[in-house]
């Protein structure tokens, strides 16, 4: 317990006694807010969020197979066989 208290005091006093570092912490805070509260929320929603693994496999599998470049499929004919 004493150890935890001294670690807590170490960080608390460190932040309290900052001089030029204070400006940098504000900068970090501003950046983290922009990144996570604005960009991540409004602009960077993962395309496959909300899907389970099976749905993701299905979606990517279809994308890989149905790409326009895969028109030449006469090398295997197991479906018709």
């Amino acid at each position, binding site marked *: 317990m004493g150890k935890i208290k001294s670690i807590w005091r170490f960080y608390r006093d460190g932040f309290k006694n900052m001089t030029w570092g204070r400006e940098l912490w504000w900068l970090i805070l501003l950046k983290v807010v922009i990144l996570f509260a604005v960009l991540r929320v409004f602009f960077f929603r993962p395309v496959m969020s909300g899907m389970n693994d099976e749905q993701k496999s299905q979606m990517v599998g279809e994308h*890989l197979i149905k790409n326009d470049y895969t028109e030449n499929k006469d090398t295997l004919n197991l479906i018709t066989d």
Partner: protein
Amino acid sequence: MDVLLWSRLQFAMTAAYHWLFVPLTLGLALAIAVMETLYVVKKDDYWKKTTQFWMKLFAINFAVGIATGIILEFEFGTNWSNYSWFVGDIFGAPLAIEGILAFFMEATFFAVMFFGWEKVSKRFHLISTWLTGIGASISAYWILVANSWMQHPVGTTFNPDTVRSEMASVDAFWEVITNPVAVSKFIHSVTSGWVTGGVFVVGVSCYYLMRKRNVEFARKSAFVGAAVAMAGTMAVMLSGDISGVHAAEYQPMKLAAAEGLEDGGRRAPFSIIPGVEIPGMLSILATHDIDGYVPGINDIINGYTDNEGNVIPSVEEKMEKGRTALAALEEYRTLKDTDPDAASIARSVLEENVQYMGYGYLESPEDVIPPVDMVYWSFRVMVGGGMFIALVLLLVLWFGYKNRIGEIKWLHYLAFLSVPLVYLTGQAGWIVAEVGRQPWTIQGLLPVNVATSSVSAAAVQTTFFLFLTIFALFLIIEIRIMINAIKKGPEVE
């Protein structure tokens, strides 16, 4: 422009921006650790104050650079979702380890570095300073493991059920993390950071020498900076040589593009600039044998026999195998629930051809050629810039050793100009590495046009300009804070 180009531009811009901060963090961390070691060993407060000044600049760079790498992960999920799913099994573990390590090591030792000067013992403080740099380097290793797997995908198998590249065992994980490309790339990248950090220290010190202020501080700092940067330069050259051998073995098209080599052969020449060549030098660099065979762009397209006697198929043949793999993938996924026997045959066909799967998406053999001019000239900027910097560093070390660094004005200017140059060479290096491996996101398995998400070009365009604005703003802020701190100067003369 289409969604692919906007996605690539956005990723390139973010990665390039991220790499403005990382090398300085890696290099300044080492320079600071060396300075603090001098303080502890010599018991001289002069070195303590010197360390504290450079630590301040380190903190400014760290504060602005922090979390810029996370934006790349945002882009993976939004712009590159197919790729993200495809590589998830490989990227998950290294990136998670990187995140945990970075957070805990940096949160602990970084805090001791800045808050602990009068609160912990000198020895513990010194250990914390070293561990901050070591922690940053270990973080870099995991990122580079992920990057190197894309350049040379080892240790994994493609699972047609999950549509992912997966690691089947602990051995596979070990193979991924000891990928030879990752090891050489790690040494090359981290030690190039030492060069950046060292040159930064030398350049800023020479600014003080030009202004004839804090002369003693600048003289001593320049010497330490030059020593750190020179150690980095030697390691960069050594690891660059190994990277060249790896490129010849695993990504010969990248090497051919970097040399503008249309037709290869034995005793292949190294191009200094177009029309000026050193006969046989490329064979030496790529194979460590003057008679080593180095394929050119046309050889790779038409097929060739490598130095071990292996017949490398033409791109047309690889495309055929790739189309077979894709057809087998489709048939396997269609039949696996209704006709297990036919599905099993399809799976076997897929496994036989899967290493060429990505070639099945190409329209023509020429699609495997990256933008040659960009790669060729970036390589020359990297090597030429690096050699110029090495020369400047040697001069700084020589005149520093002779205790005359303060008098040589032209050297102050050269050292100061080396600061933007070292950034340029670092960026050029990444252009060689990343543009040189086009059209692949994963070598041979997944071309960039298949890796993107089904999102609109307008959406990516919007975030591109949003990032551009935010990045520019933060960069201006950093440069201003940094310049103010440099102008204010250290507390010692």
